[in-house]
């Protein structure tokens, strides 16, 4: 068996009011891909941040090649050969793509940075990820998925002994995921140890060698991937059987057939060609497409975040022309954006405030929702979506990524919309909560809510869509209904030329 590179022993970490790691052990060998699994808020990201010096451990030892290390920050960890891609995309929107990739290790000539080389190398590196973009543009001009790939490319390029990937695939398409796996296997062959956090069990079985599972800040155990069954794995993660989650199979549900939203030839220069889409009450319309196919753009245009350059929108039978999200919200829409960190959370505000804000806006500022009612709403959603928190007054930034996502979902559900647009709604959500959310969505649809869901996960789209609209190159290519909705057909539509 290959040799141990990184070993964590009896790690403890406390935050005010939360004991986030209670004596966790973890062992990573050279040349293995090691899955770190657990529910939202189990402590995965915290463990990773302790390993890399972002947080200081309260107790325990970290050994790198059998030597105790005390990293004080990411820089120290990098110097020791540990490279990390953190859960939220942590790159710098103001710098160019190339600068982001080489920040802190730019190639120099005569002591000065050689920008030509930086740009060439960056472009070359990204080609390996099938990403052919202008690396001299600021990072902020690319979608969150592209940013995630860039972050991965940076992390992989720097890895010397250990590479840590915290939910790198959360907003990637199947194709990109395959590319990533190919690269991970390459690194593995070169003897690099890889820690891989994900909530997609298929991916765990596709690429990892061993699995460490955390539950409620504690270690459940370490397993060989090959010998652990899916049911056992879920059982270990949730502490209960999969059966308790309800089935995960597609289930047709009734739609009323009354048109709710009808969009004709909506377009915006340089971002979306004229596209039609119609949604009825109780219907779920899935948006499928590759990275950059225009799903996010379409959602933003409907919701009035961006100004449309042409097209008509009818909502509730009335022609509407939203000049801002506020109009859309008051008319009864909601949009849960894909970039959680940038467009979703209000970091310093409490969970309660984050949940009630959209509803408050809908009601108007003078009709203040009383504190009691706010707490009621927040507590309800926290329970219903099983947000792991001790207190609804905690700032949302202190929640784990998946739990933040649940709170943002709750925000939009709390606003009682008649049409809800979800852009990658289950990013980073664990399988238990995933099932919970799908069940919730179905329940709401039965009550007449209509949904537009953009998702990179075909399984998920298939699971609850009545209709799937496929986009390619910022254009609608086809619309699938009924039996046509299956992963193969969607893949064909996406890929066809």
């Amino acid at each position: 068996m290959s040799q141990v590179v990184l070993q964590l022993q009896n790690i403890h970490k406390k935050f005010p009011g939360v004991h986030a790691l209670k004596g966790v052990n973890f062992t990573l060998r050279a040349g293995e891909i090691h899955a770190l699994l657990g529910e939202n808020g189990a402590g995965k990201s915290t463990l990773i941040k302790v390993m890399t010096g972002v947080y200081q451990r309260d107790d325990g030892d970290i050994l790198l090649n059998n030597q105790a290390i005390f990293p004080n920050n990411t820089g120290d960890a990098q110097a020791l050969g540990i490279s990390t891609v953190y859960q939220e995309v942590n790159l710098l929107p103001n710098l160019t793509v190339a600068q982001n990739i080489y920040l802190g290790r730019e190639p120099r000539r005569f002591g000065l940075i050689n920008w030509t080389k930086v740009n060439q190398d960056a472009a070359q590196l990204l080609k390996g990820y099938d990403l052919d973009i202008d690396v001299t543009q600021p990072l902020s001009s690319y979608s969150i998925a592209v940013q995630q790939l860039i972050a991965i490319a940076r992390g992989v390029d720097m890895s010397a002994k250990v590479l840590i990937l915290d939910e790198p695939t959360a907003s990637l398409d199947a194709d990109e995921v395959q590319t990533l796996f190919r690269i991970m296997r390459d690194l593995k062959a070169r003897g690099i140890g890889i820690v891989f956090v994900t909530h997609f069990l298929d991916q765990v079985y596709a690429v990892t060698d061993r699995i460490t599972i955390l539950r409620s800040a504690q270690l459940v155990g370490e397993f060989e991937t090959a010998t652990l069954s899916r049911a056992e794995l879920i059982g270990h993660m949730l502490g209960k059987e999969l059966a308790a989650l309800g089935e995960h199979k597609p289930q047709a549900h009734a739609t009323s057939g009354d048109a709710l939203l009808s969009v004709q030839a909506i377009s915006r220069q340089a971002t979306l060609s004229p596209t039609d889409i119609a949604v009825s009450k109780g219907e779920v319309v899935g948006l499928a497409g590759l990275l950059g196919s225009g799903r996010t753009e379409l959602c933003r245009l409907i919701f009035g975040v961006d100004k449309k350059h042409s097209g008509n929108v009818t909502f509730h039978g009335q022609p509407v022309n939203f000049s801002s999200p506020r109009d859309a919200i008051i008319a009864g829409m909601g949009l849960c954006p894909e970039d959680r960190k940038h467009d979703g959370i209000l970091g310093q505000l409490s969970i309660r405030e984050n949940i009630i804000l959209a509803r408050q806006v809908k009601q108007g500022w003078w009709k203040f929702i009383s504190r009691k009612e706010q707490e009621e709403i927040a507590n309800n959603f926290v329970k219903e979506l099983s947000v792991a928190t001790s207190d609804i007054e905690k700032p949302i930034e202190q929640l784990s990524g998946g739990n933040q996502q649940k709170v943002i979902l709750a925000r939009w559900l709390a606003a009682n919309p008649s049409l809800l647009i979800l852009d990658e709604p289950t990013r980073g959500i664990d399988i238990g909560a995933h099932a919970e959310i799908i069940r919730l969505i179905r329940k709401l649809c039965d009550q007449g809510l209509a949904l537009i869901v953009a998702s990179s996960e075909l399984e998920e789209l298939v699971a609850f869509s009545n209709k799937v609209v496929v986009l390619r190159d910022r254009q609608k290519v086809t619309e699938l209904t009924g039996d046509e909705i299956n992963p193969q057909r969607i893949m064909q539509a996406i890929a066809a030329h």
Partner: protein
Amino acid sequence: MLNRKFIPLTITCCLFFLLFGIGSVQFEGFGSTQVFFNLFSDNAFLIIAAVGMTFVILSGGIDLSVGAVIALTGVVCSVLISRYQLHPLIVFPIVLIGGTIFGAIMGAIIHYYKMQPFIVTLAGMFFARGLASVISEESIPIEHEFYNQVSAFGFEVLGGAWIGSSTIICLVVLVIAIITAHYTRFGGRVYAIGGDANSAALMGIPLAQTTIRIYAISAFLASLAGIVYSFYTFSGYSLAAVGVELDAIAAVVIGGTLLTGGYGYMFGTLMGVLIMGVVQTYISFDGTLSSWWTKIVIGLLLFCFIALQQLLIKTTPR
């Protein structure tokens, strides 16, 4: 094709020359090389201080202490030179090192105690000015042969304009700063911290070291500006350069740097200073404005300029 990220900077440059052109048409003697180079020699200390400020603002911080550091430097220089008869070339390293340490301490407090730059440097401003007035409330003239030589140094360019030592120093500082900001790893770190300090830390940028260095550089340049200021006035005075920090901030921002950090160019700062200088020159050439109209017109010109800048940048097709 012009790179689109340079469009705002280009627009700013064009507006400067437009302003200068208007003055030249309107007043005799305005459109001379003398007036143009006076902009540099009159504002040399401001350019140097604003260059330091640019580093700070690019990193998302702010340094309110520069004006006070300029004054303190002047006072210390004049006391050491005039009272203690030290040679300026001994005094300068002392004040420059002292200034740098002062800045480093502010940077360390900001980083380690997680305090806001605005407040720490405001306290730094009170401290430096307070120290200056404790050392000497009165202004102290500097009389030293070296000062005369330095101020006599320079050369004439066409049109009778004089390029003196202050102009040379400030241009050298500017060039070094441009190289540092855009061609060194340190410069990259400054932009990185300004973009998002948390992300930068997660990408492995040494926050402590970088923050301390940034404030040390700013204070070092403020001290240097203090020395240049002392060449400008041959004296040290605890009330000198009041409000220079605001001028420097305004120059940096007019030059297109975002106060929230992460975006901007060193060269823009030079343009910012020159623009404010042209406005001032314009007003004194006019010479009919009363005290209050002077203020109102400065405000109006500033507004017109910024509004025009915004408008042009927004409507320029990308």
